[in-house]
């Protein structure tokens, strides 16, 4: 290993992830995704492309859905983040998680955390009122297993239970 100086100074960052406060010293190039996966061991946020093309890394940043791979960790100073590990309340699954299981809205499960976080974000945006709007609003999250019909069904069922949203018209 080289004994040269580090490439860049570390930056002090504080953020809250799933209710837990973190004080961190981070290199400026670290993405939020790699911070979550490699440093905080929150691997439920998945890396499918690292280019903002697949949505597997979707998390909620101050309540809004973002691609963690396109977000530098140092941009999140002072932010509140929710990852898939923070969606269930203790041992009780969120109604959306229950709906995903009931509707078999996943197969391999790799995109699932991103799908769920994305649907939570979609619900709070208040833009999805019909099945077609759910399909459109969930289209930033690829599912190679092709579970789309079941994802749509799960989101449609759970929407009224999320953030006081109204029901979904077929």
């Amino acid at each position, binding site marked *: *290993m*080289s*004994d*040269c100086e*580090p*490439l860049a100074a570390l930056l002090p960052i504080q953020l809250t992830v799933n209710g837990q406060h973190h004080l961190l010293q981070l*290199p400026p*190039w*670290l993405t939020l995704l*790699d911070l979550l996966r*490699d440093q905080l*061991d929150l*691997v*439920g*946020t*998945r*890396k*499918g*492309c*690292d*280019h903002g*093309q*697949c949505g*597997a890394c979707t998390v909620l940043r101050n309540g809004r859905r973002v691609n963690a791979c396109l977000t530098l960790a140092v941009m999140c100073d002072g932010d509140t983040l929710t*990852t*898939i*590990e923070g*969606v*269930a309340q203790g041992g009780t*699954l969120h109604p959306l*998680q229950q709906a*995903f*299981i009931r509707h*078999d809205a*996943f*197969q*391999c*499960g*790799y*995109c*699932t*955390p991103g799908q*769920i976080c994305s649907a939570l974000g979609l619900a709070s945006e208040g833009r999805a009122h019909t099945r*077609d709007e*759910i399909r*459109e609003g*969930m*289209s*930033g*999250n*690829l*599912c*190679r*297993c*092709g*579970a*789309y*019909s*079941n994802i*749509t069904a799960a989101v449609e069922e759970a929407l009224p239970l999320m953030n006081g949203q109204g029901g979904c018209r077929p």
Partner: protein
Amino acid sequence: MNLPQPSNGQPLDRIDGPAKVTGTARYAGEYPAPGLLHGSVVGSPIARGSVRAIDCSAALAVPGVIAVLHHQNRPPMAGDDAPYQDADAADGQPFRPLFNDQVLYSGQPLALVVAQTLELARYAGTLVRIEIDEQPHQTDLLCAFDQAHDAPVELPKPRGDFASAYAQAPFKVDATYSTPVEHHNPMEPHASTVIYQDDGSLLVHDKTQGTQNSQDYLVQVFNLPKDRVRVRAAYVGGAFGSGLRPQYQLVLATMAALNLKRSVRVSLTRQQMFTFGYRPRTVQRLRLAADAQGRLQAIHHEAIAQTSRFEDFTEHVVEWSGMLYRCDNVAMAYKLVPLDVYTPLDMRAPGAALGLIGLECAMDELARQVGMDPLALRRVNFTDINGNEGKPYSSKALLACYDQGAAVFGWHRREARPRCRCEGHELIGWGMAGGAWEAMQMKASARARLDSEGHLWVGSATTDIGTGTYTVMTQIAADAASMAVSDVTFELGDSALPTAPLQGGSFTVSSVGSAVRQVCQLLRGALVKAAKAQYPALAGEAPERFVVREGKLWVGDSGYALDTILQGHALEVKVDAEPSARRQGFATATHSAVFVEVRVDEALGTVRVTRVVSAIAAGRVINPKTARSQILGGVVWGLGMALQEHTQTDHGLGRFMNHNLAEYHMPVNADIGDIEVIFVDEPDDIVNELGSKGVGEIGIIGVAAAVANAVQHATGRRMRDFPLTVDKLLAD
């Protein structure tokens, strides 16, 4: 105590559901290890040549970089071909990562940078200077037909006399169809975490469809004792065939771990997911002939596909044309063209997904020639004998697929004339196609252990790539042991478990499921025998009256503590299951009929698939919920094949150009309309003891042809070059 409700046939929620919706399921690249190092792969930018020099000095100067491995400084690895030949190897000389200076394809790994963090490894990778003496390359199948050779497979012998039957028949089709290179692109990129244990042995978390295949490969390539390598794959983030062969990240991570005596992870980037196997580009020519009643008189199916220069990849592309319909004059041909590319790889319904495009588009064209409804033409040509083998099918409920699929779709309302329906800017077309896939069974082993608390642990070294293996094996085990599903745990994804075949080809339920059933029946029999030996009053009780629940063996209302029967020990048995002997003399296959509705906007060149009905004959369905999901996924794949998926090559550079998920188009949620799945009743006590044929492949087969047929119905245009993208729809 009542007998438990049978679990087979019930739509049980996935056992692994909670782990997957909470993010706690860990995939291969997600296991931590003390002092874990990260590897980043440096690939070749050119398609053919030899490495003249590698300069790693700048990379090694980056603080935190530990090593750069390449062909000149790698640890020893096998030199012969045989150690690299895995359970799914193609004919030829397997690719050997970092073995020597030869560059065989663009993207080939040439170096591995190992660093303390992923970012450092990736950055340092950009500093590795590789000089390559470039040689001319050829990557274009269409420009190299003169290089074609017969594929090293045994095709069915020609039957009858194709040439004269074709010449004499009144109705003919002679059409050529082309399909592109496609990539699997599972959402989880390939990754291997090699944990270097205190005793120097390796615990490997690999993305694979066969832990024992990866284990055997590492043992052979690095000359390691088998008991020093354990490969696990608890969860696999999709594979679709891409995990059937050990991929190069496994070799590189292991090489680095052995060299550095440290734990190493190598995860491929999405771009690097385009640097190994794929579905090969093909050109297929179909010649069909029929009499005035639509009866097939002659079939000729020839396919030409690309392969690499080092291996001949083969799959069953043309055989289906001799299996699906009755025809006395059939001939086939299958050729390969070696190019400066990586070897193709089995990809969901390998061969069939391609061959049924040719056959089922040609059948649609033939129906138009004869003036018959496309579904009626298929009914006329139904056969319950596999003409290739001259054997009857163990079951073939394809007519039921036609009937039920057509009824649900409303096919009887279809007007034959193209361009007959229009709504707003869109022309509406209806098309259909049939499908077939072999129902195979392999050898498989399983073990079962009943602990004295009454929990049953069943295991086999298979995987669950999203197919539902955890769940259906639990159901099969529970029923065979007369226990509740909640009292059973199925373990998989570990090379230390009893031998299982690769997970692929839709044969996991038939193979591993049979072993699981047998081992649980055996265990139950041993338990009952032990109980009868201890309690003479039970001697006359019929075996099926015994139930295990709440730590007791029950007969009616009398419970006997397992702890006492088993004398404090667990009861453990193992079974090596063979394919069912009853299969001899029969052909076995799944079948399907798929109906689609498309809406085509000719001004924009867009095609939307608004409705799909997929009717499936796959024997007995163990879990209708997870089986339906398999078919839904297959249909989505078929729609991608029809309309979107196309890995494009810049033949001047010899390199894939759209190697990312923004430009390699695959279906997104908004692309998918209503899909209805029907499982028709198909009793089959020959195919295997479960009567279940597997559903992983059949859903995709025929879908792309049905879409093309529907586009023809909508627009009057026959499109034969897949995928049917906007540029082709707008072209004159």
